[in-house]
């Protein structure tokens, strides 16, 4: 999987647009079991990354990815900032150490583990991890892009029956059951958008 500056710019834009279009929906999900700001938080982060896009495109891929993570951390705040930020910062660092290409599923796995450590969370806690791990799994099994996207969507929906063990939703205990986790939802939306973009702009 060979990334190019054009591709980075495209992905940044596709993520920004996806979040912008779904910001209200994500806030609504967060209102049900959290504090109602997840859409706003994600939008602020994506806009900050977009604003940096010119600088980012000139960087080597690992640096660009790490920088995107740092930009998210330094602009989002809340829970989403450190979580999405750690994901990308770790991914950038892993990309840098594992210069040889091809090991992306492993890189992603390590980045997701870093997110789990940051959040002191595990799979099943009703968080974005419950989308990230299945997506990584699909990737590791060389699923098609459309299947990865589908897996992300299903996984987000699968958070509904879970009882939240981390984040604000955990304060609700059993009352968190029956609602889709906002972080899982944003993660699925982004995964779907990225898969679709890659599908359409497949570098072959």
């Amino acid at each position: 999987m060979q990334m190019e500056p054009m591709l980075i710019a495209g992905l940044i834009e596709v993520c920004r647009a996806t979040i912008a279009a779904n910001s209200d929906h994500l806030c609504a999900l967060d209102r049900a079991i959290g504090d109602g700001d997840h859409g706003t938080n994600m939008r602020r982060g994506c806009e900050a990354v977009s604003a940096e896009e010119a600088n980012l495109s000139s960087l080597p891929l690992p640096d660009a990815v790490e920088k995107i993570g740092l930009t998210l951390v330094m602009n989002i705040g809340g829970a989403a900032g450190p979580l999405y930020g750690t994901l990308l910062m770790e991914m950038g660092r892993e990309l840098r150490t594992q210069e040889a290409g091809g090991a992306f599923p492993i890189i992603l796995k390590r980045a997701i583990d870093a997110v789990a450590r940051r959040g002191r969370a595990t799979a099943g806690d009703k968080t974005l991890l419950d989308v990230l791990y299945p997506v990584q799994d699909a990737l590791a099994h060389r699923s098609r892009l459309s299947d990865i996207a589908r897996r992300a969507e299903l996984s987000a929906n699968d958070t509904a029956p879970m009882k939240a063990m981390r984040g604000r939703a955990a304060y609700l205990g059993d009352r968190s059951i029956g609602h889709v986790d906002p972080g899982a939802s944003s993660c699925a939306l982004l995964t779907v958008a990225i898969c679709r973009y890659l599908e359409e702009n497949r570098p072959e």
Partner: protein
Amino acid sequence: MKKFMNTAETMAAESVEGFVRAHETFVVFGADKRCVRRRHLLPGKVAVISGGGAGHEPMHIGFVGQGMLDAACVGHVFTSPTPSQIISAIEETDSGNGCLLIVKNYDGDIMNFEMAMEMAAGRHDIATVIVADDIETARVGEGHGRRGVAGTLVVEKLLGAAAEQGMPLQALKQLGDGLSARIRSMGVALNGVTVPHTQRTTFALGAGEMEVGIGIHGEPGHSRQPFAASDAIVHQLCETIVGDIAVQPGAKALLFVNGLGGTPPAELYLAYNAARRFMEKQGIAIERSLVGTYVTSLDMQGLSITLALLTAEELQLWDFPVMTAALRWS
């Protein structure tokens, strides 16, 4: 939802700016307005820093000043500040004696302060005290801990006083960690709040309902109950608190009735009256009292009750002079 605001995006920033201007004799913005800090830092002392999302005013900026915090970081509404803000506060206030970060136990706050600490660790000696005084949540989640709510004020007051008197970093951390088993809070809301960005209430209550065990981010609480007479509500909160905290015979305490933003002082005093009676019936000597709107959840109508069992030394720290926007005595 009618609020005194111009745009949701600028609300927190405009409010903090008004705060700094109103109290400019003793507070000042840090670089790029990333934090609010004491105008006159006291060299030689440990810097005491806190922060959190906007929407809880006067906490924490209202506690910046002599005898309490050296700096506070304000995030967006109900959103933890970013590590860049926290690092800025550390850099502006650390006089070489280390920094104590006081963090409310929310995953968002914990993670942002933690990342800031990792990023600044090489250049600064940093310790963290986590405040987790909320009562209800421990029953709910399994072991992920309680929220930090109004008890944060007590922790910040005591640690701020100790730092002002020259207590070193590790001793401060020990003092702070030791407090956590002895401070408990529980809150009740009569209405949900409207987050300015979304213009929607976080939860809706009917005319005859109240939400018991709420935190300070507008999130729903532990249970919805029929609205009741004040004495019945206060009784329930106090009973839960006393049942959750190890009260020794002869215990001395601070009793704190906190307004959540939309409840007027008269109602808070009425609730205090009942809470005080309850505590005294339990044999708890109420040595100090605080009644007012200090730790808010936007314009939420509601209140929380905090009981802090304190030693004689800690009561002295409470009495130690403080000169901030929200707490002031000498």
